[in-house]
């Protein structure tokens, strides 16, 4: 595969990782693979913005060699220390040992702690600019979008924003641009990416977008470090981030549960019926049969959560426990939730669920409901009523994202 010229003299020299199926260890399922995007700018100073994941270093170097010998690279911009973007640096630095690396102070420290390379590193801060010749680059520190070291690079002459992981998607394609792919899939993957990686950082993101808007810099292309490049309508993804960062939710409910012998599932299904009959949308997931990454994505704009579990060893079951632990880290704001489940003797699952909810800062809309062994008709009716009452709380809670 040859490099791809995204603007005159600026080339995508990244790689497509068609086969990766889990990311960040096993915290994110990448059913559609991903790409690691690196960009080569040909100017008086030959500049590479970010690299790729280490195992793909040779593929990136081959692409670079189509345009210019790697030895000619003068500058390397390291927007982010994470190994999927910096992993090819050691291989690259062996080819151009005199190149200067630019990044934030935390990036410098992080790169050293990852690779222990003795490279010439220039620390940059927001507002610093670097002349490449005809073009220049300016830098905007973007701490916690999504690591402390993160920064955005902007090229004013090209109206090109290179925000690294922000605005990315895990989406392996032969195409490079938003106008060349199915936009419903593109937005599905962008949503999934935000929900699973950036959700807890909403307040930081909202401020950063405000800061960038105030700079009043023209942007006609956003080239992230994963997936598709936004050129048709770059503000579509910025607007989506503003919505997500504002915790804007819809009046809908996600029922997420784990069941041992089907009783908790029976309750879950009846609750879903009650919610639908109350005129509120619902999605239902057996946590062990569904993909956690996709459940989290669905929950991003969902106002109400119902969590169910059978009681096992006086506690909730391990699948839902792991799920709730992950959710806690996402610091969901402006949601309402409640717990349900079946038990045989002492019970305990619903109490444990409520405990995690309170630790997560998620408001408990109503007391939990627990049923001994299999629910009878009366208890099934109680489940239905529980759900319709919950649906009212979701409606009352509004969709403005307030707590």
């Amino acid at each position: 595969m040859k490099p791809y010229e995204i603007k005159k003299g600026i080339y995508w020299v990244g790689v497509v990782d068609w086969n990766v199926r889990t990311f960040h260890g096993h915290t994110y399922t990448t059913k559609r693979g991903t790409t690691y995007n690196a960009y080569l700018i040909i100017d008086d100073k030959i500049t590479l913005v970010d690299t790729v994941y280490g195992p793909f270093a040779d593929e990136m170097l081959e692409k670079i060699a189509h345009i210019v010998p790697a030895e000619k690279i003068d500058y390397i911009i390291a927007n982010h220390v994470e190994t999927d973007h910096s992993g090819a640096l050691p291989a690259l630095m062996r080819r151009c040992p005199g190149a200067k690396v630019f990044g934030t102070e935390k990036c410098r420290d992080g790169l050293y702690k990852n690779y222990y390379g003795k490279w010439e590193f220039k620390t940059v801060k927001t507002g610093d600019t670097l002349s490449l010749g005809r073009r220049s680059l300016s830098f905007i520190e973007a701490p916690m979008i999504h690591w402390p070291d993160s920064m955005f690079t902007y090229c004013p002459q090209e109206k090109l924003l290179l925000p690294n992981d922000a605005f990315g998607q895990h989406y392996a394609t032969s195409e490079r641009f938003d106008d060349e792919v199915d936009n419903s899939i593109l937005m599905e993957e962008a949503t999934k990416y935000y929900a699973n990686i950036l959700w807890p950082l909403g307040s930081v993101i909202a401020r950063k977008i405000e800061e960038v808007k105030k700079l009043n810099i023209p942007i006609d292309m956003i080239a992230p470090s994963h997936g598709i490049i936004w050129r048709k309508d770059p503000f579509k993804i910025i607007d989506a981030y503003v919505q997500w960062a504002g915790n804007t939710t819809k009046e809908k409910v996600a029922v997420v549960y784990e069941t041992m012998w089907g009783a908790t599932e029976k309750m879950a299904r009846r609750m879903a019926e009650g919610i639908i009959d109350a005129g509120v949308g619902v999605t239902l997931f057996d946590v062990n049969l569904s993909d956690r990454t996709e459940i989290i994505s669905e929950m991003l704009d969902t106002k109400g959560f119902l969590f169910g579990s059978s009681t096992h060893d006086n506690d909730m079951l391990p699948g839902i426990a792991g799920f709730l632990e992950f959710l806690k880290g996402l610091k969901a704001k402006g949601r309402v939730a409640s717990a349900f489940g079946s038990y045989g003797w002492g019970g305990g699952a619903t109490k444990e669920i409520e405990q995690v909810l309170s630790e997560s800062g998620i408001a408990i809309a109503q007391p939990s409901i627990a049923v001994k062994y299999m629910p009878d008709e009366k208890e099934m009716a109680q489940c239905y009523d529980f759900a319709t009452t919950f649906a009212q709380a979701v409606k009352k809670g509004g969709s403005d994202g307030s707590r």
Partner: protein
Amino acid sequence: MDKYRCEVCNYVYDPALGDPDSGVPAGTPFEKLPDDWVCPVCGADKSQFVKEG
């Protein structure tokens, strides 16, 4: 003097320790930190901190 926790990364500012790396001596209450002081771990600004209960 109260401790304050960064809501972004969970770093806790302890006034007894200060933040010497950023030039803040031990014994500086959170309220007396300069406006442009940021979390030494993640870079979040002061408004992202909450009082430890």
